[in-house]
C-alpha cells in the first residue's frame, strides 16, 4: 500500500452522524472484481439524484471548492454497517487519504488502515473546530502529519492525535501485513501442531 507521511490538502466537512457504508458505496456497485474505479460512485446516494443521476449541487464534494478534497471531517460513527472494503477503496479512488471523526466503526477502521488511509479520532470539541476549519473551503487547507501525530487546522491551530503504534509504523512505511505475518511462519506452524494434538477434529 501507499505510504502515509504528511498531507496538506483541502478538507471537506461531512457532518452526518452514523454515515454507513451503504451511503459510502451502495451494494449495487459491489459487483466489481477490482479495487479501483469506485471513486465515481463514492457517496452515490448523496452525490447524485436517484431519479435523474444528475449531480446534487448541494453535496459538499460536488461544490467547486471541495472537488479536490483529500481529507474528510466526518460526523460520529463514520463507516458503520457492512464490512465491504469497497468503502475505503471508493474513498481512495476519489482521492481521500485521511478521515477525521469522533469515532469509526471497527471493521471500517481496520479496512482503511490496510489501504493507506489514515483515520484520526478526535474529541467532540476538536471535531467542531476542524469542521469549522473545513467549512472555510479551498483556500484553507489542513495539514496532517502522521510522524508527529499533529493536525494543523486551516487557522493554524494545532491538534495532537493518538494512533495505534503498529498501524502508524505500517502506514509510515507502506508495509504489507501479509509479508510481516509470514515472517512468523514458525510460530504459526508451532501453533497448528499444538492445536492439532488437542483439537484433532479441526483438522479432519
Amino acid at each position, binding site marked *: 500500500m501507499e505510504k502515509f507521511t504528511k498531507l496538506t490538502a483541502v478538507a471537506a466537512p461531512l457532518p452526518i452522524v452514523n454515515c454507513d457504508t451503504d451511503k459510502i458505496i451502495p451494494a449495487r456497485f459491489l459487483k466489481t472484481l477490482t479495487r479501483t474505479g469506485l471513486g465515481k460512485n463514492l457517496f452515490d446516494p448523496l452525490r447524485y439524484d436517484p431519479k435523474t443521476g444528475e449531480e446534487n449541487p448541494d453535496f459538499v464534494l460536488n461544490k467547486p471548492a471541495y472537488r479536490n478534497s483529500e481529507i474528510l471531517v466526518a460526523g460520529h460513527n463514520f463507516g458503520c454497517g457492512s464490512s465491504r472494503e469497497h468503502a475505503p477503496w471508493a474513498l481512495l479512488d476519489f482521492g481521500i487519504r485521511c478521515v477525521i471523526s469522533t469515532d469509526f466503526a471497527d471493521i471500517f477502521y481496520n479496512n482503511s488502515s490496510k489501504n493507506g488511509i489514515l483515520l484520526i479520532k478526535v474529541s467532540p470539541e476538536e471535531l467542531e473546530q476542524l469542521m469549522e476549519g473545513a467549512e472555510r473551503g479551498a483556500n484553507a487547507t489542513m495539514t496532517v502529519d502522521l510522524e508527529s501525530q499533529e493536525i494543523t487546522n486551516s487557522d493554524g491551530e494545532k491538534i495532537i492525535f493518538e494512533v495505534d503504534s503498529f498501524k502508524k509504523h505500517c502506514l509510515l512505511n507502506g508495509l504489507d501485513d501479509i509479508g510481516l505475518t509470514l515472517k512468523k511462519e514458525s510460530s504459526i506452524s508451532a501453533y497448528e501442531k499444538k492445536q492439532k494434538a488437542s483439537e484433532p477434529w479441526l483438522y*479432519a
Partner: protein
Amino acid sequence: MSGPKTLFDKIWESHLVDQQDDGTCLVYIDRQLIHEITSAQAFDGLRESGRKARRPEANLCVPDHNVPTTPGRGGTDEIEDDASRIQLEVLEANAAEFGLPYISINDERQGIVHVIGPEQGFTQPGVTLVCGDSHTATHGAFGALAFGVGTSEVEHVLATQTLIQRPAKNMRITVTGSLPEGCTAKDLVLAIIGKIGTAGGTGHVIEYAGPAIEELSMEGRMTVCNMTIEAGARAGLVAPDEKTFEYLKGRPQCPKGAQWEMAVEQWRKLPTDVGATYDTEIQLDVSEIVPQVTWGTSPEDEIGITGVVPDPAQVSDANRRSAMERSLEYMDLKPGMKMTDIAVDKVFIGSCTNSRIEDMRAAAAVAKGHKVADSVYAMVVPGSGLVKMQAEEEGLDKIFEEAGFHWREPGCSMCLAMNGDMLQPGERSASTSNRNFEGRQGPGGRTHLVSPMMAAAAAIAGHLADVRDLIK
C-alpha cells in the same frame, strides 16, 4: 492472564500465536466462509504475490449475495445479469484453483453463508471464524468468536490462517424476563440496539447472557448475535450449552464418535468463569416489551408497534435532532403518526437475520388462513436449500402460497438488493432483514425492520400491524 475469565478471554487466549510488545496480537483463525462479493480481489492478491491458501480445507465457499431467487432458477450460466454471473464464475474458478471447498448454486446445501455454516457444522464452539461480511457475528450464537473482515483480511487469512488484531473489550448484556406473546429474538435484539445505540458496542465483543437468552432456541440466538454489528460490536457471543450441542450433533463437519465426546468436554469449559469481570455491563428486562419496528434509517431508530413516529423537536441533542429530521424526510413520515397507519408496498421475509426454519414456521403460523393485501407484494426467501426442503416437508410453502406470498429460492435477496429483488424509489417495505439504511433495499427505498411474525402481519394488513391482534 490468570484468574476468572470471560468466554471471549478464553477463546482469544487459546488462539494467540504471537504478541508484540506494543500489544498487537497475531490470532489464529480456524474457519473462513467465503462468498462472491468480497473475495475476488483477495484471490487476485494471492496470485499477484505467488501465495497459496495455507489450509484450503479450513475454508468454505458459497455464492449468496448475487444469486437469483426466482423459482426454478437454473445454474450459474443462466444468470442474466452479466456482472453477477461473472462474480459467481470467478468464485467457482478461484475455489478450484486454490483447492477450496465450494458449494454451487445448484447444490441443495447452497444458501446464505451465515445459515449454512451452522447447518453444515462448520461453525463450532470455541473456534475463531471470519468472513468478508459483517453479519459473521451470527456464528457467535454457538460460542464461536466470529466477526466480519474486509477483503485484505480475507487474503491475510487465506495466506497465513491468522489475523493481526488487538483484543476487544468485554461487554455483557444480561437479558431477564420472558418474551411476551408476539415477541421474538428479533424484537429482543432491536430493543437492545435501541437501548445502547448503533455505536454502543464499538470496540467490544458483546456476550449475551441471562434467562431470556438461555430460553432462546439456537435459531433465536443466531438472530440476536447476527444484529450485534448493528449495535457497533464486531462479535456477539452466547455461552454454549446443551441446546448448542444438540443442534450440532451429527452435522456433516462436526466431530464424530470419541472425538465428539472429546470436543463436547472441551466446549463445556468455555462459559465465563464465576467472578470474571466485564468492561461494560448492560441489563435489559424484556417481559414488558411489545413487538418492535423501526421508523428511521438506522437500526437504533426503533419503537414499539403501539407507538407513534417520534418528534425531533423533542430531542435536545443537535446532532441527533438533525439525523432524525433527515431520516423522517427520507422515510416520508411525520412526527406523531401512528406506526400502524404506515402502509407498505413490499414485504420481505428472509436474510441471514431471519430465514431459518423457525422463522419460516413463525411467519407461516401468522399467514395461515389469511390473504396478503392486494396492495402488497410479499416474498419469502428461505436461508438455504436445506431450510427450503424442511419447510416444504412441513407444508409451509403451501401455507404461504395459499395466502398469496411468493415462495423463492435461497439467497441474500432483498436484504441488500444486489440480485434484482429490490424496492423501487419511494417504495416502502416491512422487512425481516437487519439494516434500514437509506437505499439499502434499492435507491430511494424505505425499510421498516420487523420480526417474521410482524412481517407476515404487515403483508396481510397492508400496513405495519400489531401481530398480537392477529394471533389472539
